[in-house]
């Protein structure tokens, strides 16, 4: 049994690398998209605010699995052909973007109004207010939940196995298909996911404590 697992290790490692690659892409892309949309939600004109609000509430109101199937099966039907890998990344990124929007909104809302009023009073432009006053303070509120949310991206990436992408989850299922050693392999896989995510949530807790103070 252990011999079979040892034999499958390189294959599982490839799957694990793909899991990390998908998670990394999703985290980076959603951070960019989420910050842009989040700024639109907080500071944008009414139509932009409404559009982002509807986007975020819709995406967060449906299961990720439905979103993945929608993107994967729906896009080719309307004539957009993406590789299954990119369809999966797109769906997970949409989901994560909605989360980042909410983290950003919460972080910015936690900054007292007096801060941006003071910045206006000394004549800073909108961009300067964001860059020098709001974002440096909001960053401390944003970082811990965001890092904690990275674990959601890693966990969510396991769903791409349903599109036939050989991530860690799918690699485990394939090895089980050959060896019939279901229990040891699932536990092995669970421990790998656990190790990654526990490290991330530990980092998040440390940062939260680090940023617990408020500098006034």
């Amino acid at each position, binding site marked *: 049994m252990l011999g079979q697992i040892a034999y499958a290790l390189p294959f599982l490692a490839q799957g694990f690398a793909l899991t990390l690659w998908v998670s990394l892409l999703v985290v980076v892309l959603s951070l960019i998209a989420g910050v842009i949309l989040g700024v639109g939600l907080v500071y944008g004109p009414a139509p932009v605010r409404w559009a982002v609000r509807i986007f975020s509430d*819709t995406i967060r109101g449906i299961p990720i*699995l439905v979103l993945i*199937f929608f993107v994967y099966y729906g896009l080719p039907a*309307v004539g957009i052909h993406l590789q299954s890998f990119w369809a999966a990344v797109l769906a997970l990124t949409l989901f994560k973007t909605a989360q980042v929007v909410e983290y950003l909104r919460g972080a910015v809302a936690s900054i007292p109004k007096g801060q941006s009023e003071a910045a206006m009073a000394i004549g800073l432009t909108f961009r300067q207010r964001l860059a020098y006053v709001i974002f440096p303070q909001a960053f401390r509120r944003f970082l811990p939940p965001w890092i904690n949310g990275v674990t959601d991206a890693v966990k969510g990436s*396991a769903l791409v196995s*349903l599109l036939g992408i050989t991530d860690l989850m799918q690699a485990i299922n394939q090895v089980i298909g050959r060896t019939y050693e279901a*229990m040891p392999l699932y536990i092995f896989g*669970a421990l790998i*996911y656990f190790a990654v995510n*526990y490290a991330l949530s530990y980092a998040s807790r440390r940062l939260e404590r680090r940023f617990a103070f408020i500098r006034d």
Partner: protein
Amino acid sequence: MGYTLNFNLIWRHFDKLWGGLLLSLELAVISIAIGIVIGLVLAVWYVSAGRVVRGIIAAYVEFIRNVPLILLVYLVFYGLPTVVDLVYSAQTSFVATLALYSGAYLVEVFRSGLEAVPRGQLDAGKAIGLTPWQRLIHVRLPTMMRITLPALSNTFISLFKDTSVASVISVPELTYGAQWINFNTFRIVEVYLVVTAMYLMTGYALLFALRLVERWYRTAR
């Protein structure tokens, strides 16, 4: 593009979606009911236990929270029967998984709720001569419930969405119904539009109903 929406086939098979939605709700309700029991027992135990028990409960919570739900679903449905002599249906297997899953999240919710019960209330309970058991039932749990109710509603709504994962072991809930229509009629965009609307409407209806319950519970007695 050139894609023409045609919902006729969706309505013809709508029973698959409607039945699926009801099953999703049923799975979520049964799972959270069991999850609440697990969460309550472990949370009460945790706050009064020694280091070893605390360690074990914390290990359970951290393990479940850091592993993808789909892996847990596979583990219980395909993995567990190979090592224990048990026979169960996919539905039972999923409910057990989701109950253990929600239990882990609820331990945290209830534990922080218990810690938020004001010290003075317990002292007052002691002062009027309540036994520790009476203090738990009549003082700590009701106060804790009021504090944790919003978090409990949120957990329930996210569990309702998590029931979609049951489709991977062929439990005929809403997402499974959507896939069935997807593969059998190829009205792909239509079916996912309808299913998205169904998840959204149900989710917001639940949220609205649970907020009403919270408000009633806050003001009553």
